């Protein structure tokens, strides 16, 4: 469904993503992990069109979308959330969802879609509240809801689990699983919360210093020596005194 080939993104002299290649199949939940500054968010930004990559191609649903503007990519069926929640602070939950819903609906039937998404994401109680009044867990849901309202075939979630407590995380994971199974949405998640990655993803891609160092199933990844060294950090320190 999504194919990233030799993607490179530089900021001045700094190479944020270096020749990254990976593939996401329809219906999958794929996890993207790696230490801070490994280039995960940059990769997301390039895929969703916020950054123009310096090299490589991004293919989505068989179309070469490299260098497309974000709204066109969204029209084609891909949306995303942000690492730091970027809610529309002064808008209500319902209005926020509506912005996304207008992607495929017009004035006549947009309300239906809004109601539907609000229900799926369990936002009914707070639909009239203003986003700036909400806590982190609700904001994450709102952000997911507005992306969901665009009716994507694929969703990129950027650290959607960060800062959630165990119960909130559980609810959130169940929601994603449900969307994946019932609505057939393909997910690509950048995640730090290992619990979420291991519990959710069928495939994992590990990024370090802008390069993909491993990919495979959760089991393969958690035993991969290179990943352990770069990211999981099991090894104890040897302090010479």
């Amino acid at each position, binding site marked *: 469904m999504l194919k990233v080939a030799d993607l490179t993104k530089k900021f001045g002299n700094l190479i944020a993503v270096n020749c990254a290649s990976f593939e996401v199949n329809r219906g999958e939940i794929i996890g993207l992990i790696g230490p801070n500054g490994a280039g995960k968010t940059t990769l997301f930004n390039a895929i969703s069109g916020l950054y123009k990559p310096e090299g490589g191609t991004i293919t989505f649903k068989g179309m070469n979308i490299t260098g497309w503007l974000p709204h066109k990519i969204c029209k084609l069926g891909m949306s995303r959330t942000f690492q730091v929640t970027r809610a529309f602070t002064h808008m209500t939950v319902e209005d926020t969802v509506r912005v996304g819903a207008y992607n495929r609906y017009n004035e006549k039937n947009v309300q239906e879609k809004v109601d539907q998404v609000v229900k799926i994401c369990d936002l009914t109680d707070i639909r009239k509240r203003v986003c*700036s009044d909400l806590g982190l867990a609700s904001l994450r849901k709102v952000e997911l809801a507005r992306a969901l309202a665009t009716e994507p075939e694929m969703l990129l979630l950027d650290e959607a689990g960060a800062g*959630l407590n165990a119960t909130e995380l559980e609810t959130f994971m169940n929601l994603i699983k449900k969307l994946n199974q019932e609505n057939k949405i393909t997910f690509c998640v950048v995640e730090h919360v290992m619990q979420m990655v291991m519990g959710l993803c069928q495939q994992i891609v590990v990024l370090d210093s802008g390069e993909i160092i491993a990919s495979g199933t959760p089991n393969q990844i958690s035993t991969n020596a290179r990943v352990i060294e770069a990211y999981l*950090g099991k090894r104890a320190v*040897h*302090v010479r005194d």
Partner: protein
Amino acid sequence: MLEIKNLNSGYAKVSVLRNVTFHVNQDETVAIIGPNGAGKSTLLKTISGLVRAQSGDITFENNNILGLSPDLVVRRGLAYVPEGGRIFPNMTVLDNLLMGAYSNPGILKSGILEEIFTLFPILKNRSEKFARTLSGGERQMLAIGRGLVSRPKLIMLDEPSLGVAPKLIDEIYEKIHALKRFGLTVLLVEQNTGYALELADRGYVIENGQIVMEGAATDLSTSEHIKKFYLGL
């Protein structure tokens, strides 16, 4: 030396820390570990005055420092090396270090810069370079060095291994270890549990804004909970 009692803290509408109580003794290295988003950084920011506490007590050398602005906290001898270093990218390495002495320029006469250059020789070589040209590991060393210039009594380190290439983490931790010889008390916040517990004397585990475990570092590293969730053993 540093005592925190029933601290509640957070941002505008989100409460992050709930009833946190812990202490750091003189000449001790204490590690606070926990998952991402557990409130570790918020804790250090609250102590240093960047985040306003909602309630509780923070005393440093028996003086209440709760509610002081960051510039006053640092003058009490409590340095904070923030997450990611937060060096001044458009200033030279030397200027960065000098900024560390801002609250007490007289301290420069005591030869502190030479001491720091001995500890981090790489900074001496690059002292005229802009800090933005440094690598992740060098930035972290600069940040620690900058925190040391004021000769603090206690230094708080926020995720010193963050954004540092794995092979450099060893080196950074070696330097932190050397800080003990500097006569410093260290409060360390880390996600990288293995490193932190190896270095520390005592440790606290923070989850969802609450301290759920505490004990000697050796005890913690053998605890089942830690092994399972943090070390992945």
